[in-house]
Structures are given as structure tokens and as C-alpha cells.
């Protein structure tokens, strides 16, 4: 009992020191949030985002994987619009009316039904940023695919993950602010030929609207 008082003091001091040390280290080293998400999803999936029920269970693994179709063949708006967009129905039909082999597959049947009804397919958003965020696919595609000549799979994959191995797309990256900023602060070569590098814009209004 007698010496309790000093030990108590010591404990206090040690706690304080520990805290200061933590702050010092934390502030001097950038705090990198997990590139792969855990807590970001509502119904906490440890490595993948939630499975999204789509009107048609679209097999990315077949189109992007086995057939190796370029992302931007279907998501054609990505290079010229803020949103990558979903291929218009007649694009799907454009190919599938000639693909006899799968004509009787249930998915294709569904597809044809929509086409006959001349009705747009109500696809669900998988990578849905908050409404105050202005993300522009065009800028990123222009920079990384057309200027740096990276393969679309890599450029798109950085945010969308390895879609070629998914059936319907799932969100695999945090897409949180720190996650964006961590990349915007890196230096990227301005083009494949040029060794000069710049980092992404750090101005709030580039992404916040």
C-alpha cells in the first residue's frame, strides 16, 4: 500500500509517453488505409464487396476472361464520359444474334426477352460513390491507357479488381478518400515515352462537388 502512490504515478507517466510516441510515429509516417477493404462495406465482407443481384447474371469471366474482350469494347463510354456506363442493349444483341452456340442458354433467353420488349436492362450499380464525389473515368482512361499505354485490364483493374475472374462484378477496393489520395500523391509518368512524372491533383474541388 505504502508505495502504491509512486507506482501509480509511474503508470500515468508511461501511458502519457506511450501516447506521445504513438502520435509522433503516426504523424511522421503517412497512415495508409487498407488497399483491400474490410470495414468499408456495409455488410462486412472481409475481402470482397457484397454480391449484387443483377437482372442477368452476366459472366465477366467468360467475356473478359476466356474471350479476352477489352473492357472498353463494352464499357465504351469510359474513354469519353465521366461514367463508364453499361453497354446499350443493341450492342449485346449485335454479337449474340450471331453466336448460335449459346442461343438457348437461359441468360441469353433473358437477354432476348428484354430486346423483344425493347426494354432497358435494370443493371445495378456495383461501384457507387457518394453523391458528392465527382469521379471522371475519361481522365483516368486517357492518362493511363492512352498516354501511358497501360493495358486496360491493369488500368481499370486498379480500382475494379480482377474482373476477368468474377462472374458478376463485385467491389474489391476501398474506394475511400484516403485510398484515392494515396494514389493521387504518387508520381506517375505523364506518358509512355516521357520520363517526366506528375502526381494527381490534390485540389478538393477536383473530386468533391
Amino acid at each position: 500500500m505504502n508505495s502504491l502512490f509512486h507506482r501509480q504515478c509511474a503508470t500515468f507517466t508511461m501511458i502519457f509517453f506511450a501516447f506521445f510516441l504513438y502520435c509522433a510515429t503516426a504523424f511522421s509516417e503517412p497512415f495508409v488505409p487498407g488497399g483491400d477493404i474490410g470495414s468499408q462495406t456495409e455488410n462486412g465482407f472481409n475481402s470482397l464487396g457484397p454480391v449484387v443481384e443483377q437482372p442477368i447474371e452476366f459472366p465477366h469471366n467468360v467475356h473478359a476472361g476466356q474471350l479476352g474482350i477489352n473492357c472498353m469494347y463494352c464499357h465504351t463510354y469510359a474513354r469519353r464520359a465521366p461514367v463508364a456506363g453499361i453497354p446499350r442493349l443493341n450492342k449485346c444483341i449485335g454479337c449474340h444474334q450471331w453466336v448460335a452456340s449459346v442461343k438457348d442458354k437461359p441468360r441469353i433467353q433473358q437477354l432476348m426477352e428484354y430486346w423483344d420488349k425493347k426494354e432497358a436492362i435494370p443493371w445495378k450499380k456495383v461501384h457507387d460513390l457518394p453523391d458528392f464525389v465527382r469521379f471522371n473515368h475519361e481522365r483516368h482512361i486517357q492518362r493511363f491507357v492512352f498516354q501511358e499505354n497501360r493495358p486496360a485490364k491493369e488500368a481499370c483493374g486498379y480500382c475494379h479488381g480482377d474482373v476477368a475472374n468474377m462472374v458478376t462484378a463485385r467491389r474489391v477496393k476501398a474506394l475511400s478518400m484516403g485510398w484515392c489520395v494515396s494514389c493521387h500523391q504518387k508520381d506517375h509518368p505523364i506518358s509512355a515515352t516521357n520520363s517526366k512524372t506528375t502526381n494527381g491533383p490534390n485540389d478538393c474541388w477536383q473530386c468533391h462537388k
Partner: protein
Amino acid sequence: MSLSNLLNNWAALRETRPYEDQYKNSDYKWGMVVDLDACTGCNACTTACYAENNLPVVGKETFAKGQVMHWLRIERYWGDGEQLPEFPEQGAQFLPMMCQQCEAAPCEVVCPVGATHHTPDGLNSQVYNRCIGSRYCSANCPYKVRYFNWANYPEKAWPNPLEMQLNPDVTVRTKGVMEKCTFCVQRLTEAKNVARTQGRKVADGEVTTACAQACPASAISFGNLADPTSEVAKIWKQQQVKLAKDHQDKEEGARGYRIFEELRTYPSVLYLERVRDNEV
């Protein structure tokens, strides 16, 4: 986030005053000119602003409390002194007042969370989702052009199907955040994006704000001050108003001025004096 990062930007953080030719080498510095001689006070600009920027209609009671949200307001004065004239014999004095996008903005320095800051284009940004609603910026704004969401306006402002009019490029602000005129930044961003893809700068007249586009008397003109060939840059030059000066030495005949220049806010909005014939 890193300390080094902070220390590197410390100088920029403390830089609160523009200097000569600050925007010489940058692509854009958005600026505006309002010709008070042409302005007829018709309210077209204010309505255009409501339409473009998702401004909520607050209704009678809230309006009466002084909680209206017009980013751009038309002020009407009967005289410049402190004595009301018997008859306004030279007409009324109209003043379209929006955020002046100050170069040394009093609001920027005081925001605790940096929700309002200066963009490379010389705009005075407002990041809604960062704002915690301390209202210090509004307290410190000499022009009182910052508007606070005193209630959750979206709840009542757009009964279905009125909400179909909302502009998807502009956030709908909810309870407790500050907002203000943005020089229609969504239009600027779009124009810059198009220009950049084509590997060029935004050309003069390619983009303009909603108010300038609507104004039937073309009293408002908007453009890029960093580009000396643009219309606004020419007008600023011809009116001998320098962005980075807090008092202008002009010769006779120029009628450009900035409001509260002596407070060293360095606004980006140039007003042209209202010409009225005294002999009449």
C-alpha cells in the same frame, strides 16, 4: 497526411495574399465582370442560379426568418448616403451580389477544417461534406454571401416530381453545411475536361456561368483572367484594375471597381460603375 507533407505546404498555408502575375503561368484564373449600367434588375440571373445549382425554395416562414438560400441576390439601394431621398430621381441602384471569389478570402483562413480553400484556378471552393457548420466563414465574410443550411431543406423543397429538375452535377446540400456561389464550378470542370481531352485550354466563351448565360442585358460576363486574350481579361486591363492590388491608380474614364477593395480581400468580380446623367 504525413508531417513532411504538412511542413512542405506550410508556406502555401500561410500565403494569404496574391502577388503580381500570380497566375501568369497557370492555365486558368476565373473572373467576372458585372456592368451595373446594363443591369436592369430583372432577376433572370437569380432564377438561373436556382435552376443550375439546386438551390432549395425555403418557403415563406423560413424566408421571413432571413434564412433564404439565394447564392446570387439582387440588391436594390435608393441612395449612397444615409438619407432616403424624397423621390429616387435617378432610378434605383441594382447590385447583383454573389461570392466575390476573393484572392485573399477571409473565409478561407478561419475555417477550422479547411472545407473552404483556394483552388489552383483562383476559385474559393466549398466542400460540403467536409463542412462541420461552425459558420465562422460566414461570420468573417464582409459581403455576407455565404448561406447556411439552417434546416434539412431537401426534405421539403422538391416534392415529387419537382426533384426531377435537380442538376446531377451539383450536390444537394443537407442540414448544417455552409454553401455559396461557386462560379458554376460544375460547368468549368466539364469544359476543362473536354478541352484537356482535346489537348488544349478552354477557349474564351466556351464556358460561362448560369447567370451570365441568362442575363438578357448581358451585364455579366465571365471568363479566364489568366488568358490575356479573353474578354474579361481585356475588360480588366482596359478598366485598369489589377487583381493583386488593394487600391487602383487609374486615369479618368475607367469605371471599373471592386467592392470593399480596402479590406484587402482582392475579389475576382469587377463591377463597372453605373452611369447616370446628372444634368437630366
